[in-house]
């Protein structure tokens, strides 16, 4: 059943989600990707979304990030109603507030590591210098290498640096280690954790990997387009201690 669990200290949530529904297709082909999600997300939290394929995790992430608009329900970011925001408001929201990290990195192949990050600093209001962002993910060297010259883990860390360079309020990660081996995956998770702590960004990570639940403040279990239950961790394990 759906239940909403707030963290210990009462605070205004960054995201307020109520009865969020997303339907794809029409008539008999209707698919309820989200079937009424209620959730509050708070500043500085690290959230892990767990659940089987097709349970609605990615759809929720896309709605939180302003990539998609819900069919029904309430979705507020600090008072901004994302359900009625128009194209340019969504663009502004993504530009100013959200950092994305994808399973397949999605770097611009024709730009170097430094330039991929620098790209963001061209459009963000108060960006980190690209070098600082790259330093945070332990990529102080190889700044002038092109994506094709970097390993998968390095590419993903560039992607993280790109996402954090704007000092995002919200960091959304969709299977960030999905294409990486364990060792590289842990390096990437460490980087995400560090950003979460140092910048205080609300961080949401989607994964199939239950081990990663240990590094979260809260773990949200998804099934059939709903929040099945939420687990609150009293202590967060450092990413470096994880093994799978």
């Amino acid at each position: 059943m759906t239940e909403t669990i707030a963290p210990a200290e009462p605070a205004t949530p960054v995201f307020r989600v109520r009865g969020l529904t997303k339907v794809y297709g029409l008539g008999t082909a209707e698919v309820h990707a989200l079937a009424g999600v209620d959730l509050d997300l708070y500043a500085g939290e690290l959230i892990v979304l767990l659940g089987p394929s097709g349970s609605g995790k990615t759809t929720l992430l896309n709605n939180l990030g302003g990539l998609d608009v819900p069919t029904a329900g309430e979705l507020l970011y600090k008072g901004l109603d994302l359900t009625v925001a128009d194209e340019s408001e969504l663009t502004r929201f993504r530009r100013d507030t959200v950092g994305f990290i994808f399973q397949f990195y999605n770097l611009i192949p024709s730009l170097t590591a430094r330039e991929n990050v620098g790209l963001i600093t061209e459009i963000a209001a108060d960006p980190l210098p690209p070098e600082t962002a790259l330093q945070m993910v332990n990529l102080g060297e190889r700044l002038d290498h092109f994506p094709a010259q970097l390993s998968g883990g390095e590419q993903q860390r560039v992607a993280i640096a790109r996402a954090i360079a704007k000092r995002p309020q919200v960091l959304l990660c969709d299977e960030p280690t999905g294409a990486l081996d364990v060792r590289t995956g842990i390096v990437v998770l460490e980087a995400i954790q560090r950003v979460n702590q140092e910048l205080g960004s609300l961080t949401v990570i989607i994964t199939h990997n239950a081990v990663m639940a240990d590094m979260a403040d809260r773990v949200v279990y998804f099934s059939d387009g709903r929040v099945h239950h939420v687990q609150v961790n009293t202590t967060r394990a450092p990413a470096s201690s994880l093994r799978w």
Partner: protein
Amino acid sequence: MISHLDRKLWRDLSRLRGQAVAVALVMACGLAMMIMARSLIFSLESTRQEYYEANRFADVFVQLKRAPNSVATRIAELPGVATVQPGLSVLVTLDLQGLDEPASGSVRSLPDFEPPQLNRLFLRSGRWLSPGSRGEVLVSEAFAEANSLVPGDRIAMLLNGKRQQLQIAGLVLSPEIIFESRPGAALPDNRTYGTFWMPYKELARAFDLDGGFNQLALTLAPGAAERPVISEIDHLLTPYGGRGAFGRADHPSHIRVSDEIRVLETISVGFPLVFLSVAAFMINAVLSRLLALQREQIAILKAFGFTNRQIVVHYLKFAFVMVTGGTMLGAIGGVFLGHRLVLMYHRFFRFPELAFHPNRTAFPLALLVCIAAAFIGVFGAVRRAAKLPPAEAMRPEPPANYRPALIERTGIGHFLSHTFRIAVRNIERRPAQALFTVAGLALATGILIVPNCFRDGVAEILDFQWDIIQRQDVGVGLVEPSSVQVQHLLQHLPGAVRVEPFRQAFVRISYGRQRRQLGIQGLPANSLHNRVLDEHSHPIQLPAQGLVVSAKLADVLGAHLGDLLTVEVLEGKRLTQTVPLVGLAEDFAGMAAYMDMHAVNRLLGEGDVITGANFRIDPARRGEFLRALKQIPRINWVAIKESLRENFRQTTAASIGLIQIIYMVFAIVVAFGVVYNNARISLAERARELATLRVIGFSRREVGTVLVTELVILALLAVPFGLLIGTGFAKAILRAVNTETVRLPLILTTSNYSFAVLVVAVASTVSALVVLRMLNHLDLIGALKAPE
């Protein structure tokens, strides 16, 4: 039952229909032009050939002062001669009601009781002359139409100074005047010059030529060579004032049709070649893109056991669907345009029936040419894809290798924005693809130059050359050479402001093995009226010695400045002299030779004689002047500049105008096709990258900038090349279409270049807008998933 692979083909095609249609359209333009031109060549050639055969058009022609009929019999006995047709041809002055100016014509004889052996007429309307009739005449259709004459009308003619009313029995066509113009005139004026036929006896009596002939046509025996026969005839006819025999290649009407066919031949090869090259580039670009996208599908097909051959065939089918579409469109377009242009030829050429005959061989040829273009376009790309081992192909393509662009390595990299860097690095990473795009765009820009070059050339002739070369308002030719006293008589015509005499003589000019017969123009050394201009439009002052000829004539003869030309005078004392070539004149119609008037008279061995005069007249008294001219019996012809110009405007200029419009439409289609296709491919190739930019917070406009920057850089690279290529095309095509009858000057204007740039700019903008609209529908979420 359609195979599943074919079903995939149709779905892929419908997804890429915009590009497929663009390719097919460009291809169709090239093919339409080729089919149109080849079919017109076929129509003209076959119609002319049939006409010549059915009406027994002669092989050799000669005019002379007068010879007894027995000489014709001697000519008939010459070796190599098959059939001889002697006859009479005289120049007459006409008096047409409702026409201010004097008109003239040529009256030819017809045998009294039998049809002629050669150059038989075709009766268009009315009836033939009744045997033994008097006072009847047959009239050429072109003249009758221009003057609204019908059988039964009466026409007044001065026959040997005697005014006679003749009744028009019928309107006829002759294989000798498919193109009718006054002998020696570069441009036709059907209103003031016509051809007529009368019974031999009546004409001979009127001119005291009974028992003789002054023109002769003959056919050669099968296998006989033309030159020896011509030499024999010239030898035989010299005592009788022979003006030099000539073959079909020198026959004015025949030349004119041949010239038109030559122009069409250029068009049928040059333009389609360019268009189909562009189409090949485009097919290559579309297919390469499709194959890159379908890398994994190809791998899966191969993993399932499809052979390389099946895969190659599958993708080639893709190209062939576009080719078939293009060929069908091209065929329909070519036949349609051919029908339109044949109608236009009716204005110039008089055939019993000139119908459009599609050249059937043109269609398979077109298909073949297109398939070849498509094959060249796709084969490499398809083979590369098919050769990929399945396992490798199934893995997503690794990120492409990039490096800083050349422009950044120069040290100005710091000043470049990221979007600019993305664009230049993309271009540099695939130089071949960029080169193809630039080449396609450059060709598209280039072909935009040619049609306006035609237009500007015509405008130059009509508005500029005409007035600076021919400053006279009216030219008048006398029946025979007259003393300078006549000039004084002409001077006193009402309304004449200025008179300048000229001396025209019929000559044969030869250099090496080449020769041409034409009228040499003797002009006052500093002629103010009929001026001779060099290639820079500066007047050439005619020296006391030496010959100035049309640049085209020098070209035909293979002569250069300073060469000695042999000039044989074909009238009077028939002297032959060598004369140095001292100048080349740029003129736009016919071929001419100019000399100082006194030099011509010396060449002729005659005293101060004139054969005509050029007039500047008071426009207010134009009618008065022309009516006065009509009263002078010694006047043979009158050329009114404005009439000739109007005629040129309505015929030559109009036909060039029509062709220009067709080219222009085609060139614009190509420009749009290339630019649009290029933008679509860019978008498809970069969809993932652009979607990522949108996701991380770039606005539509910013993402559009990335895409558009690349297009703009390529266009900026292509346009200067395109303008250069276009200049080359224009030169080559004008050289090819410039014939002995009409030539266009090469005029390259800023507005022409600007127009080409403007079209490419508009095409680019429209294409960019279309692509930017598609950018709005970019699948942001899809881009985050695994690479396609």
